[in-house]
């Protein structure tokens, strides 16, 4: 690694494939966000004649699309930074890109042409009970897309682990020598986070494979009906893992990039190691909070769900979030756009985390489960958390590649739009959730009086959030220039 020859084309090639991933994100994000705007518009009661199957198809595409886009954008950005230390395969990245594009096309066809409305976690057996709303080919396309994406992302995450294993032993990559006090190499935090995350991805994708096999056996192999509780456990184990790991990709960017702006190093120490190993152990059980209202689930699993959901918040708060604050406090930070977005992202992660922990209390969940509180908290730590982290990371990359001077005043105005627009939208979700407005309603009935009102108010904030367009334009321009160079 250290004797890289001047003719080495790896860095340039890595930049290229990363920029293509970034392009996917920058194009799909606004489109999917507009689908969000469409949903809120319909929920506000405008265009009331729209058939509900449109709402649910749009909801499915928005959810699957957003979860997918930020997963791949996060993994791509993290791989790019990781390439300072180890060498993920470029071929694998290109293949994953191609297969992801194929998966996206299949999902768009299934939802927008086939009107597939199964929701982003397609809870078994709903895909097979369309009541005539979507054709069988749309269901087939959904599972086909999941298989394609599953294979692509397994191989891609596996390759990141392979690259890490090329330089560190597994115990080193998890930082265990920091705990045992034995001799070992210095391991940057991003390597530890990448190791934990990619192990998590593989563990999650195993469940996805099992789901596909079980359902495939039932539908194609003539097996009997599956156990719905088992499949729900597997589905949320997989879904929760994917979503949580995406967060960690964003956090990896924060660890790696923030020090460049604060002028203070962020080194691995026992605390960092302890925190990420705890996360690896606990994140597997937190998903259980999605099944609190399944009274048939064994009670000890419910209690385990609340315990692990509570505890998994501790390393995040005490190590990552606290350290971000220490790193920043009285530092020489100039608050250009990249660190601003990273910092705001950590804040959104913290705020969304509090909302999540509150809802992971079983007695509270009785009142919040499947109300708008749920989209409220996950949009907070997604849109106001990991998305801002990744946008910050991408901006950092774009500026570094083109060394163009930033118009800081414009950046400030835009950041203000994101904060006011974003948190306004979040508040509309939280208040609705606390008022028992159900999530996933194409139209609110009379009994849910505040639903349309809050949806209407949120439109103003979503439009404000559109200040993001400025970011997309700027960053897109820089990326195109970097590609041409």
């Amino acid at each position: 690694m250290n004797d890289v020859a001047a003719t080495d084309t790896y860095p340039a090639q890595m930049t290229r494939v990363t920029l293509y991933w970034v392009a996917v994100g920058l194009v799909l994000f606004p489109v999917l966000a507009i689908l969000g705007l469409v949903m809120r518009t319909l929920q506000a009661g405008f265009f009331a004649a729209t058939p509900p199957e449109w709402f649910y198809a749009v909801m499915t595409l928005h959810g699957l699309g957003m979860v997918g886009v930020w997963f791949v954008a996060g993994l791509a950005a993290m791989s790019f930074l990781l390439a300072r230390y180890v060498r993920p395969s470029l071929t694998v990245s290109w293949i994953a890109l191609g297969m992801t594009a194929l998966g996206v096309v299949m999902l768009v066809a299934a939802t927008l042409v086939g009107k597939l409305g199964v929701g982003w976690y397609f809870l078994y057996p709903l895909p097979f009970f369309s009541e005539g709303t979507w054709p069988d080919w749309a269901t087939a396309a959904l599972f086909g897309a999941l298989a394609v994406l599953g294979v692509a992302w397994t191989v891609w995450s596996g390759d990141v682990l392979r690259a890490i294993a090329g330089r560190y032993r597994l115990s080193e990559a998890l930082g265990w020598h920091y705990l045992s006090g034995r001799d070992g190499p210095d391991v940057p935090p991003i390597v530890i986070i990448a190791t934990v995350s990619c192990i998590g991805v593989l563990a999650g994708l195993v469940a996805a494979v099992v789901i596909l096999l079980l359902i495939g056996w039932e539908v194609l192999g003539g097996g009997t009906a599956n156990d719905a509780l088992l499949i729900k456990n597997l589905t949320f184990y997989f879904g929760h893992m994917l979503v949580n790991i995406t967060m960690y990709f964003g956090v990896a960017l924060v660890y790696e990039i923030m020090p460049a702006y604060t002028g203070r190093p962020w080194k691995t120490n026992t605390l960092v190691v302890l925190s990420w190993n705890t996360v690896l152990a606990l994140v597997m059980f937190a998903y259980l909070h999605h099944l609190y209202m399944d009274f048939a689930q064994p009670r000890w699993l419910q209690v385990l769900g609340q315990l692990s959901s509570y505890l998994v918040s501790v390393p995040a708060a005490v190590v990552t979030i606290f350290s971000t604050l220490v790193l920043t406090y009285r530092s020489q930070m100039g608050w250009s756009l990249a660190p601003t977005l990273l910092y705001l992202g950590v804040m959104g992660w913290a705020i969304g985390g509090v909302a999540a922990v509150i809802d992971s209390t079983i007695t509270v969940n009785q009142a919040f489960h499947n109300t708008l509180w749920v989209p409220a908290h996950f949009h907070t730590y997604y849109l106001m958390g990991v998305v801002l982290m990744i946008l910050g990371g991408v901006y950092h990359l774009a500026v570094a590649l083109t060394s163009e001077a930033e118009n800081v005043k414009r950046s400030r105005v835009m950041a203000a739009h994101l904060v006011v627009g974003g948190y306004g939208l979040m508040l509309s979700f939280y208040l609705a959730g606390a008022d028992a407005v159900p999530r996933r309603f194409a139209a609110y009935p009379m009994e849910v009086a505040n639903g349309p009102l809050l949806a209407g108010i949120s439109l103003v904030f979503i439009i404000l959030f559109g200040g993001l367009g400025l970011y997309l334009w700027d960053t897109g321009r820089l990326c195109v220039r970097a590609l041409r160079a």
Partner: protein
Amino acid sequence: MTTTVPLLLFLLSAAIIATVFAVVARSTARAGEVDYARANHLRKVFFVSLLVILAIFLGLTLPRLPYPAEAAVPEQIVNVVSRQFAFSLTEGPGPDSIETWERDFSPLAEVRTGTLVEFRVRTLDVNHAFAIYTPDGRLLAQTQAMPGYVNRLRVVFDEPGTYNVMCLEYCGLSHHAMRGVVEVVEEAQ
């Protein structure tokens, strides 16, 4: 369960977090050194307080799980059967297939105040959720309706009135229109 407490708790926490982030951000106007020893002490305090807070909440909430306690015997049983896109609530067993739905279903069940009522919730097709809303629109209680399972939800109604039932697990095209009714009447003395 009232949602005011968790909402206020959340808004308060969010305000504290935002304030801390703002203060730290502003501190960069006068750059200097951080006292790492002090920072680590503060981290310890934060760690311990967080654990204490979480332990308190665990202690307060875990003893109140909504799941049926085997010791208590329900005084009234309502069989809830769900399908795309309707609920049936009956004292008898209710419809056991889509074919017999029209014959056996009832959209409304009557229960008494002050009585331990057990709703035995099933589904004939996909997952639904059986959620009871109070006459003034609060979410009183809920449980999932899952293929192959019976989920038992126990409720004691304090106030008489018309309680709406809505579906809280997305189940397809008319999910938002799925309805049932629990009519709660004053217990006869």
